[in-house]
């Protein structure tokens, strides 16, 4: 019972925030929530299963493109398109896992980077379907095609997704499947001694993680109202997903949200201060955070804050 207090308070607070905020601030918070959602998706594989992907932008892009293509070419609403994109990403996620995970975690990380780069090229060259380097632009739309007039609507939609994945993560922490993933992360040999098939579980986790990530890609595309290879298949995105989870706390369902609330506004502020003049600054900042944060807080901010709160009480 005590476990539900922290997430409930957090989510209720987040739900009422737009009523007290400007459109600009809501936009900033929307982005923080979107990255919290994406970080949570990444974390199913990274935090729970201990398999570090540095190419989750591949799944983000598959999601963004799937729903965009379905909408612009076939008139299928993104409400359905995002599920299709999720399914496709899940297949790709499972396939890359199946091919590379048996060769170890380092090889898997490299393979995911390569996957995202390959995807970028594929989507550049498949011009008749993807629009090539210029991508696909939406003329407009309404809520039936997941286009909203106010940033607060995007915000609440994303908050809903975030609540679902946090709920899923809590379930995962306790369920047999999730316990098996964590067991594989902690000691693969011992997991085998309990009859757990490591590869099968890791491949499943990769597929599930990719599915959720792709849905975030649809949200991003519907927010931007366009999609382009260089915008979605970006290593910045892959790294930011990992960073939110690792900084916030990969071993707790609320970790990625915490990390994102910290990192995303900070990086927006830094960028606006420098007027976007320094190209690649995001990657530098994320990379820096990724390197130094484990030095100070080995398991992210979450356990640190929890210990502080416990002491106060």
């Amino acid at each position, binding site marked *: 019972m005590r476990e539900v207090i922290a997430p409930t308070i957090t989510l209720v607070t987040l739900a009422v925030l737009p009523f007290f905020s400007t459109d600009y601030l809501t936009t900033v918070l929307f982005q923080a929530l979107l990255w919290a959602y994406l970080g949570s998706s990444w974390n199913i594989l990274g935090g729970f299963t201990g398999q570090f992907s540095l190419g989750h932008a591949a799944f983000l892009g598959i999601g963004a493109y799937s729903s965009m293509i379905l909408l612009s070419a076939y008139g299928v609403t993104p409400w359905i398109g995002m599920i299709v994109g999720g399914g496709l990403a899940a297949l790709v996620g499972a396939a890359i896992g199946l091919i590379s995970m048996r060769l170890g975690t380092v090889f898997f990380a490299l393979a995911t980077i390569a996957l995202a780069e390959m995807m970028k090229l594929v989507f550049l060259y498949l011009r008749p379907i993807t629009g090539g380097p210029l991508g696909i632009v939406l003329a407009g739309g309404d809520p039936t095609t997941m286009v909203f007039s106010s940033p607060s609507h995007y915000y609440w939609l994303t908050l809903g997704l975030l609540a679902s994945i946090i709920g899923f993560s809590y379930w995962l922490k306790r369920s*047999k499947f999730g*316990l098996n993933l*964590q067991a594989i992360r902690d*000691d693969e040999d011992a997991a085998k*001694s*309990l*009859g757990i098939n490591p590869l099968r579980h890791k491949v499943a986790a990769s597929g599930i993680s990719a599915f959720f990530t792709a849905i975030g890609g649809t949200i991003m595309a519907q927010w931007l109202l366009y999609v382009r290879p260089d915008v979605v298949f970006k290593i910045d995105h892959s790294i930011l997903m990992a960073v939110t989870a690792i900084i916030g706390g990969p071993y707790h369902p609320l970790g990625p949200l915490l990390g994102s609330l910290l990192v995303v506004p900070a990086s927006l502020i830094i960028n606006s201060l420098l007027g976007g003049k320094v190209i690649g600054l995001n990657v530098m900042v994320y990379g820096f955070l990724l390197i130094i944060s484990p030095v100070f807080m080995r398991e992210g901010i979450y356990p640190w804050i929890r210990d502080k709160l416990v002491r106060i009480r």
Partner: protein
Amino acid sequence: MRLLAAEGVSKKFGGLQAVYNMNIWLDLGEVVSIIGPNGAGKTTLLNLLSGYLKPDKGVIKIFGKDVSKMSAERIARMGVGRTFQQPKVFEKLTVYENILISVLNLCKDIDDPHGRARMYTEMFGLGNVINHEARALSFGQQRLLEIARVLASDPKVIFLDEPTSGVHISLIKRLEEIIKKLKNEGKTILIVEHNMPFVAKVSDRVIVMSNGSKIAEGTYEEVKENAKVIEAYLGGR
């Protein structure tokens, strides 16, 4: 009834012959111990029998089935449980979850997995740390947790690699009782151990290994007097 039979099993690591032409069998309800000097190949043999290593030569049959090429997780699902010389616990899971996960994966049609997990936690004196993360435990406690974890899954055949090392004397007594009880329940147990008084108390049969091969076999009293055994222990490798 013969539950396990391995014949002519050999394993080389590079140029090192870790296990050579080993024959070993286990009958239902037997407690067998493997002893021998450091580096004799005892752990390697356990790894071969449980599917963590594949033999270069030889056949291993468990429940009449050839498992020589079977994966470790499939052998585990046949009802063969094991512990490791260096305890391998799930460090970020709680003590309770460490045991529960074993019940959930291996006990078929169980009504109350949580009750069973709790029972095995208590049985090994881990009740007071039940909600601690496993990495917070001492070495000895991790060893006990690992034994509790394997027993909770109700395996038919159990391999234990040095179960008493690092464990307090009062809990070693407890372990002796538990092994005798398991034996009475019809479990078959293979133990690798350096603790001779423990071996003497629990074993029906003792196998002595040296340089990868079996050099003696019999009751504890028999092998104790064996000249080859004395030489292996005194002379080293």
